[in-house]
């Protein structure tokens, strides 16, 4: 992992790391990746990927409406809103 990869990762996660902390962050991440990389040494071809550690399937509900809308409260909780909408920074170029 290098600085460019770190920069990309921080952008994707919308995170900031101070310039002076970046080397330490790279080192920590590197260690984490190495730990995960141990899995590559194993022959896992005969196993189905595990999609969920819970031994549960089929948690679902019937298609019936339940109204839990609290428009005013929802809008108020957001950083900025008007009477009807969430207001966000302009997102077209």
């Amino acid at each position, binding site marked *: 992992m290098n600085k460019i990869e770190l920069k*990309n990762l921080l*952008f*994707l996660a*919308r995170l900031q790391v101070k310039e002076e902390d970046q080397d330490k962050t790279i080192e920590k991440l590197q260690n984490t990746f190495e730990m995960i990389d141990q899995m590559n040494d194993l022959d896992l071809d005969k196993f189905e*990927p595990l*999609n*969920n550690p*819970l031994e*549960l*399937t*089929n*948690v*679902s*509900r*019937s*298609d*019936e*409406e*339940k*109204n*839990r*809308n609290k*428009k005013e409260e*929802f*809008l108020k909780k957001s950083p*900025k809103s*008007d009477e*009807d*909408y*969430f*207001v*966000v*920074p*302009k*997102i*077209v*170029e």
Partner: protein
Amino acid sequence: MAQNDTLVNGWQPVIGLEIHVQLQTNTKLFSPAKNQFGEEANTLVDLIDMGLPGVLPVLNDGAVKQGIAFGLATNAEIAKTMVFDRKNYFYPDLPKGYQITQLHYPIVKNGVVDVEGKQVRIHQAHLEEDAGKSMHDVYDSESVVDLNRSGVPLLEIVSEPDIRSAEEAVKYLKKIHQIITYLDISDGDMSQGSMRCDANVSIMRPDDKEFGIRAEIKNINSFRFVEKAINFEIKRQIKVLESGEKVEQETRLYDSVKDETRSMRTKEFANDYRYFPCPDLVPHEISEDLIKEVKDNLSELPEEKQKRLMEIHSLNEYDAGVLCADKSTADFFEEVAKEANAELAAKWIIGDLNALLNKNDVSLKESKVKASNFSKLIQNISDNTISGKIAKDVLDEVWQSGEDVAKIIEGQGMQQISDEGELEKIIDKILADNISQVEAYKSGKDKLFGFFVGQVMKATEGKANPGLVNKLLQQKLG
């Protein structure tokens, strides 16, 4: 294929479509909020759609059944186990910061549809949630977000790159539209965004072994634009390649006003969605019993409906095919044919009514012509209350105003004159006024018969019963 007429200047276009279809469930894919278009902003938003901390999505059985129905209708494999994944990206109309979708274990795989004799394969169809809606024209320097659409179930139908021309792409899209509307799993209304289409387009030389580099065109929101956008893109890529440059793999936006596609290349970084199985949702197994239940309740498909209309109403294959091309037309016909003569109804729907719809570019649903009223029109034609010619005027009036057929006929005195005595009087006067023509007819000028019919129609403003006029004229001219 003996001759390949899909080549453009010696280049073979290769096209695949990704079609997003909004499912017609009562509620959203993972929340119990109502799934409805056109409601007041942010009133159909659940805590789950808001992406508030601590909430858990729960899968909607209704959406699963609709996905299975699509799989059955396209002879596809239905997943034994399907898994939901997170697709991560930041956008203001996606409050969670990820979309729940299906990447490796979609609900439907390996389907096929017949597009006028050509098989187009469906790679997969998967369930996913729709995002909210952003609007940019409310304020000058800010955008606004309505989350009513957030979490609405989508079925994304991904075709194989089996399509070879823009025209074929439109036919395939229409076929998918036909299937989803017949299954009643979506209204397929492109103008309201309940069916949306992205096109992957590349070109190659006919003897090339590998496809060319493709561009993905987004934001195509009508059947007509699909054709235009793809044709523009094919020409653009030909120009690029023939000038010795390379086509870039990129996403392009179709601009219907300028009729062009343009690059959306604004990000420094390539898309990196970091898919992973959604830990909030457990795998979902689809049992044979559930598939059977859906199959037993599957709506009639176009081919079945066509066959049935031919059997029950003695329609010919062509007429039944035209009526069944669009479900709302077929349903309209069936409603009309409950009371009125079926063959006559078919003739008038395929002919005059379709002509009006095409001319005005209006769908049957949007028009003012309702089945019950149209049925009255057909009944009035078949019982000779009005002539076919007058019926056209009545239909025009219904088209304009939606007024009741009986009221139009009565109000404007359009009833056909089928009273023999009344017609006789008119005919006698015409014959008396045109003695020389009568003489000429009697001496062998048969063609003049049409002249007399015309005179009667003129005198009655087209209201005389044509059969009766013929009969009476023949008697009198002997």
